[in-house]
């Protein structure tokens, strides 16, 4: 084997502490090395040409480049070698920058270490073998989990590009939290007015399969080739015959037992219900936990009034499976319910604010419903307890956010803006009312955002107080808000008629479960994790799975929509080709020595290990062995380390290669 060694100065980066010429000279005499040279910038065009030229002139079989981390330029050098006729996997990188020059300052010892690093790589490359990329077919169909504005946007983008989409929503209607909002900052346009056309578009789109009241049950397979099972929960209403006339809902005798999810418990709803008038699809669902029929076996009022015989009390959950190429998680958020300390939770909550006990201490989404024209008060600002117009309202920001001692370390990002909006909407509707906002900082960085907050303060006269609230309690029919104005340096007490708490955004409780189903990481708060915060913000560490909206971190509507379109674009990149090329660095099982203990299967984080039966010609079972699905394998090597008989090898990092490296270093 003829090996070429190319040592890069990386300008001053390596050259300052490593005598690169000495490294090249030392290696030129090393067994197997046919060519060695050093150059200022190996990654530059002239540098790459040096490699190509040497390959042609000296007929090299393999190349070792002493340069920066393989994360930076391994691909560059592989491509250069491939263009000169050397298999790209016959290239090894010795990391002389991050592993040597950047961390040492003594030139002779750094040079000696650099020689060792290159020598190790030369020993490894002697055992390298030419590899081909793995090609897998791509199923051009996307799954979007979550039918909020992010999921809707992703689904529409992909569907409009001509690819089929399956949109799964766990609630009876799509729309998510955006459908509950009154008006949206910073333009104050009606939330439902801009959202519902999108919802209808989803419903009518020929490329979108909409599955509401459904949950993803199982995800198998790998990028381009997922197999997804969806549980369609029993609605107790046949969606194929229901016309959405609403007779059943009107006639249901259970009116008061169930809290309306859509109105954030400010109103009640019947046992059979449509979440809100513009729901998509407009098909009711029976809440079996409150329905009289499911409790006593009597009633059936809805069935009696239904002219289409759409009510089916015996309906069961059904399971649908889909072949999917890319998955977008858009599971969204919920508000931190601060009244109760969640079971087994590390967060302490804010009992001193009286949420859940004091009737007129509400959270942001409840205020949205009160301010909404479709809400329980038809948009009039009336407090929940006695339906009177509150003349003094206190808004408290950062309840749970930016408070590691009692809530979460992160900023919920949207509260500064929606609190300004709330205060503004209140002032627009109650002209003689007073609005106070307790804040820590105003974070209004977005197009037109700061102007919006200034407008609330300067034009609408909302009083902003910089400081925290220590306690809220009831006294003589008023809610006493005790706080501090840290700018004036005085303690404050406001006797309010209503208090609105801007509570933290937290991921949906099912977020971590969905992440586990998908095999993607999530952070300690339950938000799903991107693979790189700057350069790959919508991709996850599992290929073919992307993130959109607030399941990833707190974000507002414009950001969610932008992220959703980005995720859709990533899915469409995948759908742009029929074949997917993957790195051939995957594990391989030697079936002849595999003992079938399947420890590898148990430790595999990617479910890439399968069981394969080995039978003789007569069909008798000889043994069951492990088998690596190369499409799923990410080449982490855990199976390789676990296998007691060393029957698993990681291609590109085979035991022989690693042994050669260690041996060359230890001299054994």
């Amino acid at each position, binding site marked *: 084997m003829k090996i070429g060694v190319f040592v890069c100065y990386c300008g001053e980066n390596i050259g300052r502490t490593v005598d690169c010429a000495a490294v090249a000279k030392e290696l030129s005499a090393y067994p197997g090395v046919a060519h060695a040279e050093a150059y200022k910038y190996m990654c530059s065009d002239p540098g790459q040409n040096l490699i190509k030229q040497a390959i042609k002139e000296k007929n090299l079989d393999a190349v070792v480049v002493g340069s920066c981390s393989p994360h930076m330029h391994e691909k560059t050098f592989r491509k250069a070698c491939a263009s000169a006729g050397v298999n790209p996997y016959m290239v090894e990188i010795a990391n002389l920058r991050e592993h040597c020059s950047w961390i040492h300052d003594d030139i002779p010892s750094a040079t000696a270490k650099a020689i060792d690093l290159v020598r190790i790589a030369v020993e490894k490359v002697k055992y390298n073998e030419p590899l081909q990329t793995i090609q897998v077919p791509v199923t051009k169909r996307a799954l979007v989990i979550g039918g909020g504005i992010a999921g809707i946007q992703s689904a529409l983008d992909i569907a409009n590009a001509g690819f089929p989409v399956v949109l799964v929503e766990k609630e009876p209607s799509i729309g998510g939290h955006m459908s509950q909002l009154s008006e949206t900052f910073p333009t104050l346009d009606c939330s439902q007015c801009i959202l519902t056309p999108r919802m209808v578009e989803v419903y009518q789109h020929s490329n979108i399969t909409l599955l509401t009241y459904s949950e993803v049950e199982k995800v198998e397979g790998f990028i381009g080739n997922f197999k997804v099972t969806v549980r369609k929960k029993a609605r107790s209403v046949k969606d194929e015959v229901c016309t959405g006339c609403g007779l059943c809902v009107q006639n249901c005798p259970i009116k008061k037992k169930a809290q309306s999810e859509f109105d954030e418990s400010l109103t009640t709803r019947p046992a059979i219900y449509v979440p809100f008038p513009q729901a998509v699809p407009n098909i009711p669902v029976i809440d079996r936990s409150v329905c009289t029929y499911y409790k006593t076996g009597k009633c059936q009022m809805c069935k009696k009034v239904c002219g289409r015989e759409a009510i089916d009390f015996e309906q069961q959950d059904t399971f649908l499976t889909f072949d999917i190429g890319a998955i977008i998680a858009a599971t969204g958020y919920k508000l931190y319910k601060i009244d109760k300390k969640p079971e087994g939770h590390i967060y302490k909550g804010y009992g001193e604010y009286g949420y859940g006990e004091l009737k007129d201490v509400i959270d942001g989404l409840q205020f949205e419903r009160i301010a909404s024209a479709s809400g329980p008060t038809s948009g009039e600002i009336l407090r929940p307890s006695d339906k009177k117009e509150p003349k003094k309202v206190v808004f408290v920001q950062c309840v749970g956010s930016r408070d590691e001692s009692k809530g979460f370390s992160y900023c919920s990002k949207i509260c500064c803006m929606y609190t300004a909006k709330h205060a503004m909407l209140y002032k627009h509707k109650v002209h003689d009312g007073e609005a106070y906002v307790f804040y820590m900082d105003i974070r209004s960085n977005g197009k037109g955002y700061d102007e919006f907050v200034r407008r609330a303060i300067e034009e609408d006269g909302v009083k902003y107080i910089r400081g925290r609230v220590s306690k809220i309690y009831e006294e003589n029919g008023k809610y006493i808000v005790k706080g501090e104005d840290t700018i004036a340096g005085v303690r404050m007490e406001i006797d309010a008629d209503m208090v609105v708490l801007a509570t933290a955004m937290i991921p949906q409780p099912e977020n971590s479960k969905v992440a586990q189903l998908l095999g993607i990481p999530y952070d300690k708060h339950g938000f799903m994790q991107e693979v790189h915060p700057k350069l790959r913000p919508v991709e996850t560490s599992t290929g073919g799975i992307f993130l959109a909206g607030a399941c990833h971190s707190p974000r507002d509507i414009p950001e969610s929509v932008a992220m959703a379109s980005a995720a859709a674009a990533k899915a469409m990149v995948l759908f742009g080709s029929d074949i997917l090329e993957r790195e051939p660095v995957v594990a391989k099982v030697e079936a*002849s020595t595999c*003992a*079938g*203990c*399947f*420890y590898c299967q*148990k430790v595999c984080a990617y479910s890439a290990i399968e069981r394969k039966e080995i039978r003789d010609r007569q069909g008798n079972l000889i043994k069951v062995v492990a088998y690596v699905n190369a499409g799923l394998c990410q080449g982490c090597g855990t199976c390789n380390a676990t296998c007691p*008989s*060393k*029957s698993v090898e990681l291609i590109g990092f085979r035991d022989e290669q690693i042994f050669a490296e260690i041996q060359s270093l230890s001299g054994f």
Partner: protein
Amino acid sequence: MPDLIEIAKGLLESKEVSFIIGYTKDRFGRVKPYIAKSVEDANNLMFDHHSIHNLAVYLTRLKIPENGRVGIVAKSCDIKAIIALIQENQIKREQVYIIGMNCSGVVTHSTDEWKKENIQIKCKYCADKAPMLYDAVAGTAEPFEQPDDTQEVLMQKLETMSSAERWDFWAKEFEKCIKCYACRQVCPMCYCEQCLAEKNQPQWITTSPTPAGNFSWNIIKAFHMAGRCVGCHECERACPMGIPLTLLTRKMGMVAGKEFNYRHGMAIDQPTLVGSYNFNDNEDFIK
């Protein structure tokens, strides 16, 4: 209590099992493993204080057909190995008919006389324990004089040693190793078709009995037993050089018990220690 021979005859007659792995006495009166293939063979089966061998080792050595079933005579320590083999996918529960023996202790070597000094230490911790997984039970357990746990004394001594002293201790012990691999052959949990020791590309373990090779073999073998050893002590019995191998495996078992509250071979549906992850695992040792 039904007699072992009666049970075996019934099984072989009805062809419920294709053969029974058990014990017999050879012409010198020594107890040895025996495979009874017919009703007549069943008459040769026996069980006593000298039935020391862990016969579970044969379950993976003799290839059992996919839908086949074999019988096995097993003490409660051997049953743990059978459970472990089921846990590790080596056999299926329905492939074995376990004749659990009510055991009242066994001697260390097959020619040992039945007296206190010769009783295996493992029996001290298993005294009067009935078989925990079986299809039939035979024999009667009688109380016996408990042996002294001399190993525990040695373990405590090793704990107090410095690492240099411990190195010297094991260097001296491993020096005796002749790489006969009897410890591996007799171990029911060593079922790999090709052992690591036989792998030569790359050569993980030097084959000749040099200090380096002896260390790597014995340490690798011990590590492969971490969280897997069922404590039958067959390796130490089989070792012709008298290396105290169970000192290592017993210590590993104690660590698995202390750190992860795990014992191998206790329930067929229990996830294995290496093959499972528990959020509540005590991770103090990594910090």
